[in-house]
């Protein structure tokens, strides 16, 4: 589809992008709706275990897996987790509302930045976009994603509840005003975005249509789930599939390309661990990569002291659901509150560490990063 205006470029290749970056959101939505219709609520936890935890693992591979990167960022890779886990432990115990807010907001910012990062890679791959494209695209993501958070029934339910818990509950009229303003800003920015694209094309700039198809697919998933399904379960499953799988894919290909592009004589002397990572991300060994990720997820679940049957989407829980009163008495009491807090600290701590690492390891303008893209 080469023309004077359009300049396609792909993150993986034409087929790979069609599956993982353009088609995946639609499949994720279908899967999430199916989960809501036919599976128990546990499906959301199952997706976290199958997808989200392995996608954290991909970050650890990306940061700690190559000696070159590890030595480049060693200070931040040590200091970051220490600070984040300290904040997590203190926050979860003493200021749970703040802890929840910071965690959720950072998660949203992280989601925005990931899709923005992919947009940047599309421009990088096709050599499109102007000097201002990065900032304008980022503005687009902030405005459109933010609008979804502010105006959709799904998310306004969450932030209004949070405001109420903090003693800042607004009136219904105030909420309407805020939502109307948000829509107005979104519409205004949408018009500005289209206008600057048209002006750019008239000035001879080329655009990568795949990038816009990718952005469209992402926002279809988010907006459809936030309005039409309006369900935490559907949004959570669909978003985690899209976010997690796309992340795992990019990390795998990044590491593979990096490993393959390193000439034998340029590879520094490495320990067994680094060599294993190089081996794992090699061509045709994607299944090893996937298997190790799942083993990591299972181990993580064991450390959390949570049941491994979450892997089964709530389908394989017969012994649990059929428990009688008599068997309950035999089981005895569990200190579920402390166990919940412990699990929360671990999940949030690792999650936020992942957000933090991603904030500096994926700079598309960085020449060393470009090597793996």
């Amino acid at each position: 589809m080469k023309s004077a205006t359009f300049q396609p470029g792909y993150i993986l290749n034409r087929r790979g992008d069609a599956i993982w970056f353009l088609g995946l959101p639609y499949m994720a939505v279908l899967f999430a709706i199916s989960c809501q219709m036919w599976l128990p609520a546990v499906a959301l936890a199952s997706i976290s275990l199958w997808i989200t935890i392995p996608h954290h693992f991909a970050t650890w591979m990306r940061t700690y897996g190559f000696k070159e990167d590890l030595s480049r960022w060693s200070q931040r890779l040590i200091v970051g987790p220490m600070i984040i886990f300290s904040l997590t432990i203190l926050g979860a115990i003493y200021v749970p509302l703040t802890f929840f807010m910071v965690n959720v907001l950072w998660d949203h910012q992280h989601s925005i930045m990931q899709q923005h990062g992919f947009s940047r890679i599309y421009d990088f791959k096709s050599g499109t976009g102007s000097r201002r494209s990065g900032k304008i695209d980022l503005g687009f993501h902030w405005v459109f994603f933010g609008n979804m958070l502010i105006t959709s029934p799904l998310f306004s339910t969450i932030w209004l509840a949070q405001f109420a818990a903090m003693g800042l509950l607004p009136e219904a009229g105030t909420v309407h005003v805020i939502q109307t303003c948000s829509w107005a800003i979104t519409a205004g920015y949408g018009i500005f975005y289209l206008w600057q694209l048209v002006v750019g094309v008239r000035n001879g700039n080329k655009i990568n249509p795949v990038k816009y198809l990718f952005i469209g697919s992402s926002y279809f998933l988010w907006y459809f789930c936030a309005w039409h399904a309006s369900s935490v379960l559907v949004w959570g499953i669909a978003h985690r599939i899209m976010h997690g799988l796309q992340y795992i894919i990019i990390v795998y290909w990044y590491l593979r390309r990096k490993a393959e592009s390193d000439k034998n004589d340029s590879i520094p002397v490495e320990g067994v661990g680094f060599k294993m990572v190089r081996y794992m991300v090699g061509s045709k060994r994607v299944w090893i990569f996937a298997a190790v990720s799942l083993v990591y997820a299972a181990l993580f679940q064991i450390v959390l002291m949570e049941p491994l049957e979450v892997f089964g989407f709530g389908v394989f829980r017969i012994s649990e659901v059929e428990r009688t009163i008599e068997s309950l008495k035999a089981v005895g009491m569990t200190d579920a509150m402390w166990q919940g807090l412990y699990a929360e600290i671990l999940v949030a701590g690792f999650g936020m560490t992942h957000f933090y690492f991603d904030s500096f390891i994926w700079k598309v303008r960085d020449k060393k990063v470009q090597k793996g893209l």
Partner: protein
Amino acid sequence: MKFLQKYRILCIVTLAFGGGAYYELNYIESTSNFVPVMAQPNPAAELLIELYPQRPGSICLEADRAVYLRYDLETAKTNLETAIRQNYKDDASYFYNYASVLMLLGAPKKEIEEAVRQWRVHGIPVQNELDPRVIYQGVTFPLPLEEGATRLMTKSLDGRRIAIAPEMSATASTMYAEIQDLLEPNPNYRTKNIRATTRFTALSLAHDGSHIISANEGGVMTIINLDSQKFLHRLTNTSGDIFAAAVIPSRNIAITGDRSGLVKIWDLVDGSILHTEPAANRSVSAITVSPSESLLATGDWDGNVTVWELNETNGIKKIGFNDAGHQGVITNLVFGADNTTLASASRDHTARIFKLDATLNGTTIVKHRAPIYGLDIAPSGTQFVTAGEDQVLAVWAVSDGRPIQKDVKPLPIYSALFTTKPNELMIVNEQQQLSYERVASP
């Protein structure tokens, strides 16, 4: 500068944590909750229901409010069934709530088992100790308070007697209500006990302190003449538990309000029923008699307040009604000393002062952060006191609801009364002993 640039994200996150923590620790009052299913609904529930009434989540919030505010299990059941039919799985706790509601309604075992099964299917991890089949076994609304809490506290208007019935362990074989004769000089004769085999559900002293009426689970009612030390009656109400009672010796009558919504007037002489009045669609939860003993006020689980006139033949006639003042169970009612005002307290976190006329216009409203149980109007008629599950004991101006004094206690306060002395309150402290508090002059 380079350091800040390198760690800017961490700095931003740490600042966000710090700022949020400062606000949370200094400006947000934490609540310690409570009983599953009866936990306070989402604080934004009312707004969310208004904004998104059709969302299954809002329908579930309605169910929360129905149970929490009005003990309305039937509405909660209907709402939860609607949400479950719409495939609502966002919050697995509603499967738990549904099973609990069925258990509290005494639904067939098969239905309860299936609801529990659904809760277990959807919730990971499930907390075994909270299994509704275990914790709601034999429990009906209103749920008992925690052991040691004292909701039942009554005084005679002349200030010579008070009576309290602290909540006791459910496994205790004997329950006690304690009557204190405050004017008795000999401490050995100052306290008397009423014993019963089941929980006390209502307790009231006559205005002149001469008689006491108490009620226990199962609808058993006891009336004693304290002056003559004479046990008058032990009667059983055939229409269920009695949640509110009063005794008027000058008219030779006792009045009860029960689970079926009936107000009954009993003859003190022979224990017969003189009059039965359907006063509410659901349970009657509060009764009070005016100082003049000519008016009666009742409150119910739907938040309605009704004022009745006692006639010469000891029948009652409705003269005032308000169904808009409260959204939750009326927990307490008190007439002002001048017979022209009525105070009400409710589970909806508010207390109101009404002018006594046909429409019962609410003139003053005050708010707590949890259900209010303790309520009294000062003998001067200028102040009233409220006490609630939020551990706050507050004194307000009757005229405009202006706060005069607020104290946060270590435990929830379920009762508070003015004494006959100016600016003095009494509450039952955490050792289940009477404790006196000074009130600041307005």
